[in-house]
């Protein structure tokens, strides 16, 4: 992971746009709950690889757009995104040093925490989703993370 070159903000916008679109592409219903939280993964990656470009405000607005996109109560995803982005920013120097496997496990715990925040807000706002399948995106997100790191790092180095 290159860390001496701040990525152009173009990469930030393009990748979050693609992540947002991927979060809305219709899938067959049996595949639907496997969908990882692409936008959160992108936010986490930028917080790790380019903490200046992908700051907390970026996380906040990304979450707000996702709220509007999904039509849930405004502020739900932005709160969760800010919380996760804060953790990553707080420890980014350490997490960056982790070997990829170790880093992936860290991301997995972050994803779990993220789902827990959403679960909690859903419960408070009176729309609890108590299906066990809601935790599956944690696993699929963990699987997608190394791929995302590979792809985004490649673009970062080239540009």
């Amino acid at each position, binding site marked *: 992971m290159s*860390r*001496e*070159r*701040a990525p*152009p*903000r173009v990469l930030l916008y393009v990748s979050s*746009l693609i992540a*947002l*679109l991927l*979060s*809305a*592409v*219709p*899938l067959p*219903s049996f595949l*639907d*709950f496997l*969908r990882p939280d692409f936008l959160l993964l992108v936010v986490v990656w930028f917080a790790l690889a380019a903490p*200046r*470009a992908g*700051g*907390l*405000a*970026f*996380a*906040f607005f990304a*979450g*707000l*757009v996702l*709220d*509007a*996109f*999904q*039509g*849930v*109560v*405004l*502020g*739900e995803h*932005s*709160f969760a995104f*800010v*919380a996760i*982005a*804060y953790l990553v*920013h*707080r420890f980014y120097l350490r997490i960056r040093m982790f070997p990829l496997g170790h880093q992936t496990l860290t991301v997995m715990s972050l994803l779990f925490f993220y789902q827990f925040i959403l679960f909690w*807000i859903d419960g408070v*706002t*009176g*729309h*609890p*989703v108590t*299906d066990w*399948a*809601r935790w599956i995106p944690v696993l699929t997100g963990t699987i997608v993370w190394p791929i995302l790191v590979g792809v985004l790092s490649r673009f970062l180095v080239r540009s």
Partner: protein
Amino acid sequence: MAVLRDSGVRPPVPRFSALGLKAMVLAAVSVAIMVVDYRQQHLQVIRSALTSAVYPLQLIVHSPIAAWQRWQASMASRDSLLAENAGLKETVQKDEIRLLRLVAAERENQRLRALLGAAPRIAERVAMAGIMRIELDAFRQRVLIDKGSRDQVFKGQAVIDAYGVVGQVTNVGPVSAEVILLSDNAHSIPVQVSRNDLRTIATGSGDPRRLSLNYLPRAADIKVDDVLLSSGLGGVFPAGYPVGRVVEVRRDPSQPLLSISIEPYAHLDRDQEVLLVWFDKPTAPPAPPEVAKPATSKRHGPAAAGTDAPADATAKPDTPAKSAPAAPAAPGTKPPTAPANGAPAASPARTGTGATP
């Protein structure tokens, strides 16, 4: 984020304190937005603006899939189109005949209602809307439609399809609106059993093929294949639209309430188009004569067994043609149920929305 320099040099001093403060502020803002959005309607403007801002993105997702479907349709073979056309013509003819019968029934219904002094049937207007091929949330039963406030769509509007009730509008943008389906587990619809006017509430289960009735006591008169219609209480849904069919009734002796599964008639997971319904909210009819009338007609009912069935038919005037086959079954089961459920259920239904929230 305040500093967006393109040099990659790390700050000499870790920005932890500022970071924590910023996170606190943003989290507090998020919570404030959530509270305001959840408790009040002040954010309607912002939400509407955000909705229209993300609409182009949603179009980006939707259009390739829609284009693919259009292309597939335009590539359909001549033979299959001809066959489809013939089938549709046949259906239209059958429907025309059914409709003719229905017109006569409706006229009769109006006359009978006039005799009863009941409020006339509610005028309705519908408009078609397409469902956008967009996945909003895997664990919520919600869809996006391509009509918005520009087409007079409003929040809380009822949405139906050719088979039954689909759901209601929850968010309205300028050119799009979000619809919560009956099967969302945060959604409930007031219904009544067409056979005996037993009223209850059908709640979504998260599965597009299932609804559930959770509030009926064990002694309630309901059985498999009973048809549920929207009761119109609450004023969101027009009365008398088919909602679903009872597929399972579980009587657990240890539980005070029944657990009942409903299969919705609407094709919640397959629809491409839906209908938006505008109807005038039923105004509260003058109360005293309304309460008296059904009571007397009920008293006449059991006296002569032959008049029971017609009396029953007038009690549920908004029933569509679907319940016509169910009517002959009613007299057989009527004597035991009429004193228990029929009479109390029928009279409050006439008085309006006061009885049930």
